[in-house]
């Protein structure tokens, strides 16, 4: 188990570094001059050259690359071109805001998806209807679900704020969006695992022992859903923390995704790099955490498949 873990951590670090290198190189090929973005009205070439020198943009790419990664290994994400403060201090609060949304979104999708899966398994009559709901939700892009919710609950029913921002009232619709779009995955997992459990020998034994249905459902059937569901939650938390860009754009939720989009428009390379790296770390870290938790819950997963 320890070996499996070390392998996964090593692969994770390699993946994050790969993403970082790729992002760095890509950003340098993106046309556009950050100096021009900072001083759009500057007339003289000297002013622009001065800005470039201040940002060390006049150095060769290799030097900048070494500089950046040396900083990265010290835990320094650099300084924003535009905002004149450290990238870490810009990302920190945005990450917390996105974290709140990610958490609310995961709770929503577990509740909605789990509910759909359980209903579909226990009541075969509505199974076709649940499948239809699943496929429909699966077919919809996040931003479409978000905009339709905004239209109905914000603009028509006036039940939700439409002005953007982060707060307890503002979080409901974006979280519901994530919940609805993510639900089919959970519904499918729950239904598959429950079907597996229900046809298993241990459930037959439990029934033969005369245990009450409710007890069997909770202690034997749903418990087995836990392991794959944990993997899903880990994947989703990681993916959402890397910025739910579209949902944040639709609802004006000031998270890391919105920060990334703004920085891309400003050619604020250090901030873009920071968000991409933080995002990749989140993806890798939460997948890893989920793996560890799963090994704990389900001993069968403790060795890597060949």
């Amino acid at each position: 188990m320890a070996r499996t873990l070390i392998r996964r951590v090593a692969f994770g670090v390699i993946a994050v570094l790969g993403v970082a290198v790729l992002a760095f190189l890509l950003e340098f090929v993106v046309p556009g001059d950050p100096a021009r973005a900072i001083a759009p009205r500057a007339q003289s070439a000297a002013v622009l050259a001065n800005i470039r020198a201040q940002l060390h943009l006049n150095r060769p790419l290799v030097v900048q690359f070494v500089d950046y990664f040396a900083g990265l290994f010290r835990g320094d994400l650099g300084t924003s071109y535009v905002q004149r403060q450290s990238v870490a201090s810009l990302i920190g609060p945005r990450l917390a805001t996105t974290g709140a949304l990610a958490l609310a979104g995961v709770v929503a999708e577990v509740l909605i998806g789990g509910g759909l899966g359980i209903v579909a398994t226990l009541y075969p009559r509505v199974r076709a209807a649940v499948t239809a709901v699943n496929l429909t939700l699966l077919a919809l892009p996040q931003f479409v679900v978000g905009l339709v919710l905004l239209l109905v609950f914000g603009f028509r029913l006036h039940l939700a704020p439409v002005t953007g921002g982060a707060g307890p009232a503002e979080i409901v619709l974006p979280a519901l969006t994530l919940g609805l779009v993510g639900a089919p995955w959970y519904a499918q997992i729950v239904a598959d695992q429950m079907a597996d459990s229900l046809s298993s020998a241990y459930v037959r034994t439990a029934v033969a022992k005369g245990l009450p249905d409710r007890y069997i459902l909770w202690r034997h059937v749903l418990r087995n859903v836990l392991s794959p569901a944990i993997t899903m939650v880990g994947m989703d938390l990681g993916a959402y923390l890397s910025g739910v860009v579209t949902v944040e754009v639709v609802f004006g939720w000031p998270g890391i995704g919105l920060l990334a989009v703004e920085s891309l428009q400003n050619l604020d390379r250090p901030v873009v790099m920071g968000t991409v790296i933080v995002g990749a770390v989140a993806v890798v870290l939460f997948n890893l955490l989920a793996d560890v938790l799963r090994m704990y819950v389900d001993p069968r997963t403790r060795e890597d498949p060949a």
Partner: protein
Amino acid sequence: MTAATTAVPPAAPAAREAAPTRRRARWPATLTAGVALLGVFTCVAIAAPAFGNPLHQNLLTGLSPSGLPLGLSWAHPLGTDTLGRSELARLAFGIRTSMIVAVVSNFTSIAVGAAVGLAAGFFRGPVEAVLMRVTDVGLALPYTLAALVIAGLMTAGLTRVIVIITALFWAYPARLVYGEVLRLRRRGFVESGEAMGASGLATVRRHLAPHMFPLLVTYSPLNAASAVVFEATLSYLGAGISPPTASLGNMISDGQDAISYAPHLLLVPAVAILLITLSFLLLGEGLKARNPDLARVSWLGR
């Protein structure tokens, strides 16, 4: 868990034979529905010019006297947008864009992924290590952000969308194919072939590649559906296909600006996206129902 299911991360639990009593449909209804809907969309895509000019701004009769977009009427079946253009014509061309993206980028991303997966599974050793680590990077990329960065490198248009989708969508099929190759290797016929003196190329061509075909055919509708969704998302964010060219995504972006007074501009393209992706998903479900061995190719794997 059988060996077959563990080979396909991320942990898609194999849908076992649900109930032995349920008969397997030979030609499932989902397949019929998917094929029929896709047929309709293909026809619309091909015949898009027949629905009118998507760029013609009718400022005299296309807008209300106060300059607002028109609602649904006989003259304009789906109303007009904020510039007085026929929403129906724009919708037809938006569908055309979506269908082209679905078909082309589906093919390119799967081709790249299959090549990587086959090479990694066949050569093993250092090639395998490098290719699969690169695949890990591909899977760890924050999709939307990476897409926005790549978008900055190219000019707007179909090519940009297809390049972005290929660059981001190849990793999952690569993992899928790689897992399948490893699974096949355990079955021994590759080794017997090699023992009989088959060359490497012959092994790939005769023994491995043909086995990938059903797997990839089953996966491609799901991939195509994701591609349609992603194109719309990119164009919505302004990183895909830019106006005035119609795409369902940029139509929704336009519709968002008119959300409080002309909700049909948002809802019409939204319903179109829903129906296109739904028809691909139905096709995928139908293919899986016909071939339960492939049920592990799940839309669970994003």
